[in-house]
């Protein structure tokens, strides 16, 4: 057993005979401390008058400012970290704008044929087919919208749909990509893509896309057969329960879900569509897809 573990009684060093040199030195130093005066009678009287009063505080030193700044910084960092952990907003509230590229190329919609005929709706309406190259960018889509104001595909055979489907503005389409990327769980891609974009595209960051624009762009992409991007754009945006486009949007989402392998959700959407619009323009196709 080591010496410091013994529990034998001791005597104070000051009264111990035969101390070692180190112990004698320690005893002398402790004597110096013992003889130190603590408080004078005047000081004790002064303290006695202060009992029960708030203690006087040391003056503010130069590092108080640093400490306050440090606390403020820590609070700000904690706030930022907390914000980063919040769930992703739905695409309608996406805040980054990325210019479209070829991945968002929209295949030309097949010109719908009028029932029992060989003319397209555009031809029937006296409008020529859009000229020039096929639209492969948002600008192209916008040109197509201008050229075909009332010849949106399927518009003529959807009884409840308006004659013209509103098309997302180019700004909205530019905002599609990050939202789609987030929805597809490729969380790192939007950051890298954003960094690749030119400054003007980044300058629009922070804007939210109105839900109606998201729905319009979704319908447009779905019609063009770009189901993957259409669903990515749609994300968690709720479909309208009523309205002229409610049935068509529901059908499109179900069709696209099936096309991208999300069978359960797709079948559910198509079943809902049939339940709500048993005589809708897409009812036959919905039944065929469900089979």
């Amino acid at each position, binding site marked *: 057993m080591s010496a*410091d573990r013994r529990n034998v009684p001791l005597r*104070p060093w*000051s009264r111990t005979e035969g101390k070692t040199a180190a112990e004698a030195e320690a005893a002398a130093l402790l004597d110096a401390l013992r003889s130190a005066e*603590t408080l004078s009678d005047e000081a*004790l009287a*002064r303290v*006695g008058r202060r009992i029960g009063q708030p203690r*006087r505080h040391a003056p503010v030193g130069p590092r108080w400012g640093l400490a306050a700044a440090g606390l403020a910084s820590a609070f700000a960092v904690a706030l930022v970290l907390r914000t980063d952990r919040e769930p992703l907003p739905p695409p309608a509230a996406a805040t980054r704008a990325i210019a479209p590229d070829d991945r968002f190329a929209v295949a030309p919609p097949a010109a719908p044929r009028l029932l029992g005929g060989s003319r397209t709706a555009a031809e029937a309406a006296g409008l020529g087919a859009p000229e020039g190259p096929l639209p492969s960018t948002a600008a192209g889509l916008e040109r197509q919208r201008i050229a075909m104001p009332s010849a949106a595909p399927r518009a003529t055979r959807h009884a409840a749909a308006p004659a013209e489907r509103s098309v997302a503005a180019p700004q909205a389409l530019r905002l599609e990509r990050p939202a789609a990327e987030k929805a597809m769980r490729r969380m790192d891609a939007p950051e890298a893509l954003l960094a690749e974009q030119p400054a003007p595209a980044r300058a629009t960051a922070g804007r939210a896309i109105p839900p109606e624009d998201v729905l319009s762009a979704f319908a447009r992409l779905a019609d063009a057969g770009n189901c993957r991007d259409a669903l990515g754009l749609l994300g968690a945006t709720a479909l309208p329960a009523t309205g002229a486009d409610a049935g068509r949007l529901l059908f499109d989402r179900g069709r696209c879900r099936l096309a991208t392998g999300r069978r359960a959700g797709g079948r559910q959407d198509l079943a809902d569509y049939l339940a709500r619009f048993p005589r809708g323009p897409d009812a036959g196709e919905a039944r065929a897809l469900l089979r």
Partner: protein
Amino acid sequence: MTTAAERSAAPADREGLTVESIYRRHAADVARWAARLGGPRLEVEDAVQEVFTRVQDHLDGFRGEAKLTTWLFRITRNVVLRQRRRDRFRAFLRGPAEDAARELPAPGLSPEGNAEQRQARERIARALEGLTERQRTAIVLFELEDLSGEEVAERMGVSVGNLWVLLHRARAALLRRLEETR
């Protein structure tokens, strides 16, 4: 609502104890304990004021199960511990310039005597700073206050056997610290 003055004047249930009477009898003891437990950086006046403010607040709850000096010592030790923690933080905030200012010699002492005494006190204080709170308390009570082992054990709330073990270790640690600061 009773004022602080009224409360301080109100006698406790036991032996007519009042804050004033306790202060008159034990203020110097409390100041000495605080200075020895807290080291040279402790604001002894503040510690004494806080101790007796606590005494005033808790005198009605003092049941007399422990000796008055034991009760006062435990309050003093708690106050010193709290103040030492607070002072360490404040010393950092004040910065090195004000730390240096606090080390200036006290007025009224000759420079030579002051320097020697200061060196000795600083050295033993620095060595005591390196001990744990329990070890420092044991050394202060046993070596400086000249209390018996039983009295020290009572004030610290430990058994006498444990106190001897604690003291053996505290002495060994103190000697090591002094050797390091040689």
